[in-house]
């Protein structure tokens, strides 16, 4: 027996001078295995063609659909409506990112700025001859790098972060994790001094207050707590 659920979404189009922020309720019949992706797609196709949200892979891989779902930052595509016992779901756009419209936010520009700021790439003077055998890497080291490379830049760590909420220049767990990732990559020749230049300030590693919402809401279960601590210990010694 399916039940009726109520989805409440914050609607607002900042680029439209007539738009005022309002909460809108949508009632719909729940289906077995219904995710918020399915629910919102249905709402968009039937009740409100004008509701904007960001879904791409709808499988928790691409990180596009972060939202505040009943107060918590989550990936909407991986959230089942059946998880909410009272059938009431309130959706808000992710804070800390510029709002595009309704539930759609501009994580792209934010993440691009972050990537450029922490030089999120391999830095090396070594020239690779790609016709020759690849550089050998210890398998465990490759696994360790992969572990941190799993970040999908969904922005939930930033949206959950009290520092980021207050200080818009904070690099976020996503940025600190990225630096940790390159610092353990054997292809990267950067030293701790070099990394200090990227994150050695209050907008970087020293802005983190260790409230660990990043760790608690990361949909990929990245070891953010220990990696941020690791970077902090390193940076303090520089």
């Amino acid at each position, binding site marked *: 027996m399916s039940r009726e659920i109520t989805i409440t979404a914050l609607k607002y189009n900042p680029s439209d001078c007539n738009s005022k922020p309002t909460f809108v309720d949508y009632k719909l019949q729940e289906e077995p295995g219904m995710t918020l992706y399915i629910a919102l797609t249905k709402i968009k196709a039937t009740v409100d063609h004008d509701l904007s949200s960001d879904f791409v892979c709808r499988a928790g891989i691409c990180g596009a659909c972060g939202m505040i779902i009943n107060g918590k930052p989550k990936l909407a595509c991986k959230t089942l409506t059946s998880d909410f016992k009272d059938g009431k779901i309130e959706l808000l756009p992710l804070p800390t990112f510029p709002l595009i419209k309704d539930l759609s936010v501009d994580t792209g520009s934010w993440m691009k700025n972050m990537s450029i700021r922490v030089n999120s790439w391999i830095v090396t003077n070594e020239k690779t001859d790609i016709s020759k055998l690849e550089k050998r890497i210890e398998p465990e080291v490759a696994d360790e790098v992969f572990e941190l490379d799993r970040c999908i830049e969904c922005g939930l760590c930033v949206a959950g972060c009290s520092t980021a*909420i207050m200080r818009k220049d904070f690099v976020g767990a996503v940025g600190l994790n990225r630096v940790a990732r390159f610092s353990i990559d054997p292809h990267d020749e950067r030293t701790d001094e070099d990394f200090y230049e990227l994150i050695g300030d209050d907008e970087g590693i020293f802005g983190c207050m260790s409230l660990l919402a990043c760790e608690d809401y990361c949909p990929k279960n990245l070891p953010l707590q220990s990696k941020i601590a690791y970077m*902090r210990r390193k940076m303090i010694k520089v």
Partner: protein
Amino acid sequence: MSQENIIESLTGKTSKKKKSRIPAKLDFLQSATGLILAIFMIFHMLFVSTILISKDFMYSVTKAFELSFIFEGGSTVPVFISILIIFIIFIFHAFLAMRKFPISYKEVLRLKTHSDLMNHGDTKLWIIQVVTGFLLFFLGSVHLYIMLTNPGNIGPFASSDRVYSDTMWPLYILLLIAVEFHGAIGLYRLSVKWGWFEGSDPKKSRKRLKKAKWILSGVMLVLGAATLVAYMKIGAEHQSNYGERYTIQTEVQNAY
């Protein structure tokens, strides 16, 4: 004005084209001062709570702090110096921690809404720290100033008189609550911040640390409350003899 400062404030880099190391030092010092204060508070509590064992014991511990084994009858100088050092660390810690506070209306609104919506444990704990930290600016300063100006007035009667007859007890109740929350949360935060006691499973260790934090807060609050009650009781009994100092002999005479 130093040119180095001008260069850094305008360009964000030192004259060697490097980032300043000051933020690293400040971050470290915030933690270090916090750790010192927290450890101090634990020992402070253990010391004042000796009254629960006996007045004599508390008295002899006090005298030991006054280095009575060196100076005949003890000296207030070492106590004064200790308090002064703690006061300086306290002010410095407050100054460093203030950097993290929400300051503008927008920041306060955003932080409060965020925390209320999310209902996330560690975030709420931090807000408790902000509030208790703010209270401690005043409560701690008052207490420390009084002790600094009366380093000799520590003892079973002197302290009790202060608590009861000088009506310091309302301040001490608030101070106790603020300190024990602030300190225990602070110690927990220090552990996760620097990755202490991480072990092989940081998630599990964090749970344990959090449990330890609650236990510490609880034990300290109970101990503190009991101690305060003890001083209140002595203070009430001793009201008529306000200002009289405790001696071991008095105790012996009273026993008869």
